[in-house]
């Protein structure tokens, strides 16, 4: 299967070998991964809470989006690069765990949630931006996002838990 050969190739690249064999690479990259979570997950939760009218109610949704988006995208890029680097250390081992597969499915679902929002309610943002209460659809998006990202974190923890310590 194409996936298997890609994993073997990634495993054997000098980068994959470096991650696997260096004493410091894994702890340093994982620390960056976890600390960036404070910006990424923190801002995602804040956005969701805003969509749910639970905080920052006096700031319009569009303003919260505009202010947090650059940080969110930057942090996500770091999460992606560090996450893929950790994965490169032993792709076959990671992929063999149920939690890794679940995490990827939840990640895709979370991305889909963002896309659906942007294509529907997000397009009509100007119509409901200034209202005192966000529409029901925005609240559904917020709850879905919270549930999905919490699942991503839980699965991530699960991966570390079922894998033998390095």
């Amino acid at each position, binding site marked *: 299967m194409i996936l298997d050969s890609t994993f073997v190739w990634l495993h054997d690249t000098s980068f994959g070998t470096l991650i696997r064999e260096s004493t410091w690479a894994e*702890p340093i990259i*994982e*620390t960056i991964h*976890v*600390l960036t*979570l*404070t*910006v*990424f*997950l*923190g*801002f*995602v*939760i*804040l956005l969701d*809470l805003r969509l749910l009218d639970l*905080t*920052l*109610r*006096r*700031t*319009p949704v569009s*303003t*919260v989006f505009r*202010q*947090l988006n650059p*940080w969110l995208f930057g942090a996500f890029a770091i999460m992606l690069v560090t996450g893929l680097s950790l994965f490169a250390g032993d792709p076959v081992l990671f992929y063999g765990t149920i939690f890794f597969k679940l995490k990827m499915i939840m990640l895709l679902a979370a991305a889909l949630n963002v896309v659906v929002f942007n294509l529907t309610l997000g397009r009509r943002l100007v119509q409901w931006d200034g209202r005192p209460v966000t529409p029901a659809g925005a609240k559904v998006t917020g709850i879905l996002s919270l549930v999905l990202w*919490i699942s991503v*974190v*839980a699965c991530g*923890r*699960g991966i570390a*838990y079922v894998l033998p310590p390095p």
Partner: protein
Amino acid sequence: MHELATWTLEFCRWCNESFFGHTIRDSAWLFPFIEVFHLLALGLLGGILVMLNLSLLGFRFGHATTGELARELRPWMLGCILIMLLSGFLLFSTEAVKLYGNWAFQLKMIFLLLALLYTATLHRRVLEAPQAGAALRALTAGVSLLLWLGVGLGGRAIGYVTTAASAVAGS
């Protein structure tokens, strides 16, 4: 100083033998389950602190002043700190005596104490002082970020530090 050390070790022994310590240790899934709450609260707490400190550094979040932002986010911040302390204590109780001798854990606790004190006093005062100058605001934000970064790095290091503390535990 010696008495404090004895008392602390006594407390760690008590945690180890407590109902929480036993129950979580004996369960296959309770530890990771509690850890997820610890991580989620970390995410939101970190996000709030980054946002407040960015605001101190001059980034605008809508029309809200730094003080308004701080007041609005405070209940969430306190909730996160509470969840982190509770879940952290539960995780700690599973291997309290081992952690007693772990320098990374000691470092984390010192940073945590400083960060909490700082957040409740100086940080809060400057967040709510509209007349504070740019330099003071920047300094306040920098110290806050450094203190909490110390807590985070100490926490990350705990798992990588192996100690001879198990010997202490046996004595």
